[in-house]
């Protein structure tokens, strides 16, 4: 039988699924450059890397906050930007930047960090792209001052815009960022719950191809349990979507030595492989110091791809209660309102969802995470989270600036440890290297 189908390129979700069927972990950078020629060079280098890669255009932070005046001013003055300004570049400039870069095997995702990405979503669709990421909670609370209710409304519109762009050869893709909240010190159950809730929100507003994020935290066994819980909840709550899990290499304070940075990256790649995740967002050896170069990104992609190869899937995973906590958090939100966006707003207002150390005005700020001596991340305070019957926070709840710094730097120290003798100035600049992502 001969079927003549219209010419169409596989969508983001399909390409990831094809790699997964071949047993390959898709690896992806966070790359973004202001200059179109530089951006193009970065995408081509990503495509040519010796690994299963997908491209990234990370936008600059003026675009993220919607300050297009500042973008245009910086472009006019020739000042550097920390990403590609997709909204303010002429669409023909972006189209020629992408010409010959996009192929059926190499989709490109736009990463932005914006609480109101309406113009970004329109711009990326106009440029022939169809994949992006974020979420009404995860790109509002940590990265903006916008009210959560507004962000929910803007993200609803974005989902509808993406859904309306579905067509032959185009299945829009949206990835939750909820599994990465704050980068560190957010206990895994809340990361899993937020990732699931954002995915359900996308689904409710018409997006059909969804990936669910989870950021590597401080303990490999705990992370395995969290990803297993995430997969189970996706299966139960978003059963009809095309889905996959994306792991983020550690987003907290990153090792400063090249050796430590590579070890942590390799551990995240093995975590992805063991837990059956399909995709990994990598970090580079430059992470603790500055924005990475194209070559550093390529090296990270190849290192991660190699580290994941031939790692067997883990079948038996210990249960310390992450699934039960995450399910309780999700069910509690779903019981508040049939509209998931409204339910999210109510949940944060009542402290039923409450992100540790998040300074946003709509976050109650009554919860806190801490690390035990084995590096497991637990609740120190649960505020009014509906998990009182599932966790037992410690009686001593004091945290000094030194305690906080110790927890924030736990992974950095652990992974730099064996390389530290060759490092220079480890103590000199430690105080303000407190990254959280974008």
């Amino acid at each position: 039988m001969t079927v003549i189908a219209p010419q169409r390129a596989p969508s983001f979700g399909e390409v990831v699924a094809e790699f997964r069927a071949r047993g390959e972990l898709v690896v992806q950078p966070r790359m973004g450059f202001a200059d179109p020629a530089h951006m193009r060079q970065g995408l081509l280098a990503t495509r040519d890397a010796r690994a299963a890669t997908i491209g990234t255009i990370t936008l600059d932070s003026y675009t993220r906050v919607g300050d297009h005046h500042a973008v245009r001013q910086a472009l006019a003055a020739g000042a550097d930007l920390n990403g590609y300004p997709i909204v303010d570049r002429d669409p023909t400039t972006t189209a020629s930047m992408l010409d010959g870069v996009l192929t059926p095997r190499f989709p490109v995702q736009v990463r932005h960090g914006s609480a109101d990405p309406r113009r970004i979503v329109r711009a990326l669709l106009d440029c022939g792209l169809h994949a992006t990421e974020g979420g009404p909670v995860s790109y509002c609370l940590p990265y903006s001052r916008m009210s959560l209710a507004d962000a929910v409304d803007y993200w609803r519109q974005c989902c509808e815009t993406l859904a309306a762009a579905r067509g032959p050869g185009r299945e829009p893709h949206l990835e939750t960022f909820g599994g990465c909240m704050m980068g560190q010190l957010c206990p895994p159950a809340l990361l899993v719950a937020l990732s699931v809730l954002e995915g359900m929100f996308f689904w409710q507003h018409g997006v059909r191809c969804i990936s669910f994020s989870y950021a590597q935290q401080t303990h490999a066994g705990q992370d395995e349990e969290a990803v297993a819980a995430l997969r189970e909840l996706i299966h139960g709550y978003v059963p009809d979507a095309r889905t996959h899990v994306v792991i983020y290499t550690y987003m907290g304070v990153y090792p400063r030595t090249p050796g430590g940075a590579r070890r942590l990256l390799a551990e995240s790649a093995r975590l992805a492989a063991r837990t059956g995740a399909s995709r990994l967002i990598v970090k580079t050896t430059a992470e603790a110091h500055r924005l990475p170069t194209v070559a550093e990104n390529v090296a990270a992609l190849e290192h991660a791809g190699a580290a994941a190869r031939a790692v067997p899937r883990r079948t038996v995973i210990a249960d310390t209660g992450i699934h039960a906590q995450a399910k309780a958090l999700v069910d509690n939100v779903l019981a508040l309102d049939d509209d998931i966006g409204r339910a999210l707003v109510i949940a944060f207002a009542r402290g039923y969802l409450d992100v540790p150390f998040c300074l946003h005005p709509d976050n109650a700020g009554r919860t806190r995470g801490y690390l035990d001596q084995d590096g497991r991340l637990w609740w120190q305070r649960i505020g009014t989270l509906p998990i009182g019957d599932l966790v037992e926070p410690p009686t001593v709840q004091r945290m000094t600036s030194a305690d906080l710094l110790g927890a924030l730097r736990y992974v950095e120290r652990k992974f730099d440890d064996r390389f530290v003798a060759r490092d220079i100035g480890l103590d000199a600049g430690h105080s303000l290297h407190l990254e959280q992502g974008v």
Partner: protein
Amino acid sequence: MSIEILRAAGPDTRLDVVVSSLSSDAHTWNLVYLQLLLEELGCRVTNLGGCTPDETIVHECVARRPDLLVISSLNGHGCQDGIRLIGTLRACPALVATPVVIGGKLDVAGGGDGHNAVRLLAAGFDAVFEDTGGLTPFRSFVHTLAGRAAAPLGAR
């Protein structure tokens, strides 16, 4: 903007300090850390959080008349955003003499050559703490400021 923090028992420097990021910078761990640190030094801290527009910083400072404004930025736009902010602050009569300091990773290139510091000081900041310098200079600055604030008014 609130985060529940247990006040540390420490010598009260009686400094009212406002901690803030800059308009395009979403990093906040640095702000949480600085709040805890300053509270341990006995300061009363108002934390304005991340992505703070210039108008919000000016408005809060005019309303609160802090003894110190601490700007912390990590996203590489700190130098250009900081220069714009300090111009706006210094143009406000109430804030002409308010001590304002900035620290973090202040440019995209990784800086550290002192060039940023020269520009930021010339623009009106009282001190610049690039992240290669560690915490000691910042602590000393706060202590010195607290000492000045504690002196009789006539000596200030």
